[in-house]
């Protein structure tokens, strides 16, 4: 089955991102295709490479980055939600006149159309959030 996944909460405060990650991994292991993971609302905060969780804790951002590298999963951060919350890639940082970017490897910033497209293209769109 072709799956789309939506993550609506940031890392650590809520379990949503962890659950979405576990779900995506399990689905891929079972032979399903994860067409896209779309990060919206505070979910965009999963895409910063600047988090430094304690060493004996899971690193949620790294989990996603590794999943993207291993399984070629498309991780998309909503641009409008990201701009509100300070998640920028190099292009956006330049365009907005900011002195740094923080997007994590494996993530890309794009528009809400990518969410709608995931709904259209996927057999099932599964949302994680409160």
């Amino acid at each position, binding site marked *: 089955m072709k799956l789309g996944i939506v993550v609506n909460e940031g890392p650590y405060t809520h379990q949503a991102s962890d659950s979405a990650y576990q779900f995506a991994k399990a689905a891929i292991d079972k032979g399903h295709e994860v067409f896209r993971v779309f990060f919206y609302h505070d979910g965009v905060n999963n895409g910063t490479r600047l988090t430094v969780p304690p060493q004996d804790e899971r690193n949620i951002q790294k989990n996603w980055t590794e999943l993207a590298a291993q399984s070629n999963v498309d991780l998309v951060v909503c641009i409008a939600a990201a701009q509100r919350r300070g998640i920028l890639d190099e292009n956006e940082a330049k365009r907005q006149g900011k002195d740094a970017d923080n997007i994590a490897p494996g993530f890309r910033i794009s528009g809400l*159309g990518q969410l*709608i497209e995931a709904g259209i293209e996927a057999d099932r769109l599964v949302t994680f959030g409160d």
Partner: protein
Amino acid sequence: MAMDEAGGAPGAAKKFLYVNRKAPYGTIYALESLEVVLIGAAFEQDVQLAFLDDGVYQIVKNQSTDAIGAKNFSPTYKALGDYEVTKLYVEAEALEERGLTADDLMEITFEDEDDDWAEKPSINIVSRADMAKIMSEQDVILSF
């Protein structure tokens, strides 16, 4: 449910339901839900909105955000008709539980191109049971 049911024929419009469950200003979900609806309108899908739980407060009339420093985005709901988003379902029980009636809601209308552009109400108040039925008929549900 068979897996191919959701997609229908290739290229056919899917039924999208945006479920609004939260009050308009305590969190950003309502505003960012509306942003998805507006962007999604360009994709020519079959779009419905549902308002239940505290989500019914999103379309209450005479909203003012002066005291909280947030943008009052409620006028945008009135523009949904221009985006061909014309089916808004409001749960009757959610209104009743909050002491609200249909008269407390904004007048949201659309011009029906199949009926000589007659202006018609977009809001349909439905029972909880009917809302469940509406949800069961969707291909994609985005809940905010």
